[in-house]
C-alpha cells in the first residue's frame, strides 16, 4: 500500500445514464499540496470531488486518499477528509455556533476537543457575535465563511473544497483565500479544490489540472502552464487548452 500520495486517482470513469461525467481521469496530489481542478461547466470537476469525498462511486478506476481506497475504506477516508460542497447550506434553525458544535462533535474525541474546534472556527470565520444568530439570518457571504470555517476547523488531512469562494464578493473571497493559505501553511493540510476563478487558482494552487469532458487535458504548476502555452495568465491557458481539446 503506497501512502506517498495524498490522492491517487487512476483511470476514473463515472457514467450517469448516457452521460460520461468522467472518462479515464488520472491525477496525483502530494501531501501538503494545494491542487486545483479547473475546467468549463460540465467538465466533471464536481463529480471528481464527490468521488474523492466518498459521495459517489466510480464506475471504474480507483481513487486512494492517503493509501485508503475511497470505495473499500470509505468510513476510514471520511475520518481524514473534510468536504465543502459548492452550494452547501447550513441548518436554518441552528445558530452558527450550534452548527459548528454539531459538526465538531463528529470528529472530536471529547468535549474539550470539540470546544477547541468551535473556537478555532469562530476565529476563522470572523463572524464574531453573529455566530449567535440563526443561520437563516446570514447573508450568502456569511454562510460561506461559516462553512469554510467548518471544513477547516477539523484540521483534516485532506480538505476538498468545491468552489470555496463561490458567490462571494471580492473582500469575502480574499478573506476566505487567506484562511485557506494560512491553514495549509500552519497545519500542513492537503487541499483539493475546484474553481472557475483563475485568479484564485493562480493565487492558491501549487499545481492545477485542466479537465475537459471528463478527461485531464493539461497539468502542472500555474507558472509552468503559462510558459508551456505561451500565455500571460491562467485564463488564457484555460481558453487555449479547452479550445484545443
Amino acid at each position, binding site marked *: 500500500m503506497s501512502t506517498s500520495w495524498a490522492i491517487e486517482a487512476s483511470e476514473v470513469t463515472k457514467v*450517469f*445514464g448516457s*452521460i460520461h*461525467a468522467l472518462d479515464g481521469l488520472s491525477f496525483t496530489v502530494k501531501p501538503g499540496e494545494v491542487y486545483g481542478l479547473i475546467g468549463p*461547466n*460540465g*467538465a*466533471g*470537476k*464536481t*463529480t471528481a470531488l*464527490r468521488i474523492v*469525498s*466518498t*459521495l*459517489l*462511486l466510480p464506475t471504474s478506476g480507483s481513487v486512494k486518499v492517503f493509501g485508503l481506497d475511497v470505495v473499500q475504506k470509505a*468510513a476510514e477516508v*471520511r*475520518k481524514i*477528509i*473534510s*468536504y*465543502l*460542497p*459548492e*452550494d*452547501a*447550506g*447550513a*441548518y*436554518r434553525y441552528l445558530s452558527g455556533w450550534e452548527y459548528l458544535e454539531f*459538526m465538531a462533535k*463528529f*470528529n472530536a474525541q471529547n468535549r474539550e476537543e470539540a470546544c477547541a474546534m468551535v473556537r478555532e472556527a469562530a476565529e476563522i470565520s470572523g463572524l464574531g457575535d453573529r455566530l449567535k444568530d440563526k443561520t437563516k439570518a446570514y447573508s450568502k457571504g456569511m454562510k460561506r465563511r461559516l*462553512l469554510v470555517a*467548518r471544513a477547516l476547523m477539523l484540521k483534516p488531512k485532506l480538505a476538498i473544497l468545491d468552489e470555496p469562494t463561490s458567490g462571494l464578493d471580492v473582500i469575502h473571497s480574499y478573506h476566505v483565500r487567506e484562511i485557506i493559505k494560512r491553514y495549509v501553511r500552519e497545519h500542513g493540510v492537503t487541499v483539493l479544490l475546484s474553481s472557475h476563478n483563475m485568479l484564485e487558482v493562480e493565487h492558491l494552487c501549487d499545481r492545477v489540472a485542466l479537465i475537459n469532458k471528463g478527461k485531464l487535458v493539461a497539468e502542472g504548476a500555474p507558472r509552468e502552464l503559462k510558459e508551456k502555452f505561451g500565455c500571460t495568465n491562467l485564463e488564457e491557458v484555460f481558453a487555449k487548452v479547452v479550445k484545443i481539446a
Partner: protein
Amino acid sequence: MLKGFGNFLLKELKELARDPKILLGMIVVPLIMFPVLGGIMGYAVQTAQEQAIKASLIVVDNDCGNWSSVFIGFLKGLNVTVYVENNTKLDNEKVLELLSRYNTTQILEIPEGFSQNVTVHFSNSNVKASLRFYGVLRGTGVFESVGSSVVDALINQFNRAVAPDILYSEKATVIKGEIKYGVDPATISGLLMSQSIALPITILILLMYAVQIAATSVAMEKEEKTLETLLTLPMDRLAILWGKLSSSIIVAAVGAIAYMAGYSYVLGSAMAGIPVGLNLDLAALGLTPSVFGYLLLGLTLFVTMLSALALAVIMSAFAEDVRSAQSFVSYIYPLIFLPSIALIYLDINTLPFALRLVFYAIPFSHPVIASKAVIMGDYWTVVFGIVYVSAFTLVVMYAASKFFATEKILTAKLKFKGLKRREAKPTEEI
C-alpha cells in the same frame, strides 16, 4: 395592489396546475378515495342489514299457548328463519348451547304466561306481554346493533298488526360467552363506538403527523443542501436514517398527545350528554382492554408507526425538495385513511375473506384492528398483526438502510414522466 403580484400569482397557479404530483395528490387521489369510502360505507350498511334480515332467530317458546303460536307464525310470515324450541329453561349454558347448535346470534324467549298477558291486554291495556331478547356482541362495528334493532322492528310490526304496545322486549347481551341481563347490545355498541372512533382517528392523525415530519426532514436536507456534507462525515449512515425516524416519532407523539387532549375534551363533552341511567361500566362488563392488551396495542402502534416512517423516509429520499416530498408521501395517505375510517364502520370479522385479506395486507390497518381485537380479548389477531407489520417494517427498513448506504440517496430521483425512476443526471455542475 402590490406591483407584479398578479403576474407572480399567475405563474404560481400555472406551476401548480402543471405539476403532475400536485394533480395526482390533491385531485386524483381524493377523487378516487372518497367514492371508495362511500362504497365501503354503503356496503357496510347493506351487509349489516342483509345479515340481520337473513339471520336466523331461535324462538324459545316456554308459553306454548295460542298467542305464542300466532307470534311465531307472524315471524315466519315475515320470511324470518325461525328455529323453535319448546319449554326450554334458559340459563347461561343453555343459551350458549342453543346459539352454537343453530349457529346464530339471536334468541327470542317467549316466557310462560305470554298468551295469558296478551289476552288480558285486550280488557286491560296496562297489562303487556314481555319477550326476552338475547343478542351476542361479536365485534365493535358501527352496525353491530342492527340485529337488536331488527328484532325491535319485528315486535313493532306485530304490535301494529295486533294492538299498540301489546308486546315489549327485555334485552340481554352475551359478551364473551356470558349473559349480561338488562344490557341492550345496541347501548353497548354505542358506547364502544365512541371508543372505536376515538382510537382510529387518533391513530390516523398520529401516523399522518409522523409521515409528514419524516418526509419533510429528509427533503429539507436536500433542499437546504446539507445532505452532501452530512454524508461525508465520519458517522454511520444508518444513524441518519434512525435519527430521522426517531425525531419524527418524538415530534409526532408530542403532536398526538396535544391532539388526544383536545379530542378527549370533545369526547368528554359528548359523553356528558348520556343519561345517568345508561351509564354502563364497560370495565365491569369486561369490555376494556387488559394491561396485556394495552401492551400489545402499544406494540402494534409502534411497529406500524415505524413502518410508515421508514416508507416516508425512503419515498422522500427520491424527492428534490420539500414540496415534492410532501406530494410523494401523499400517496401513502389513502392507505392510512381508508382502513382507519372503513374499520370504524365495519367489523373486519364480518367481511368476505378476500376483502379481509386486503385489510390485513395494509400495515396501517393493524392498529385499528388491534384496538378492537384487544377489547374482545382476541389477542391472536393482534399478535399476528404485530408479526406481519414487523416483517413489513424490517423489509422497508432493510431497503431504506441499503438505500442510505449507497450514492442513490444523493442521486436517485423519481420522475413523473411515465413514472420512470432513473438515476439523475445531476442538475448542478458535474
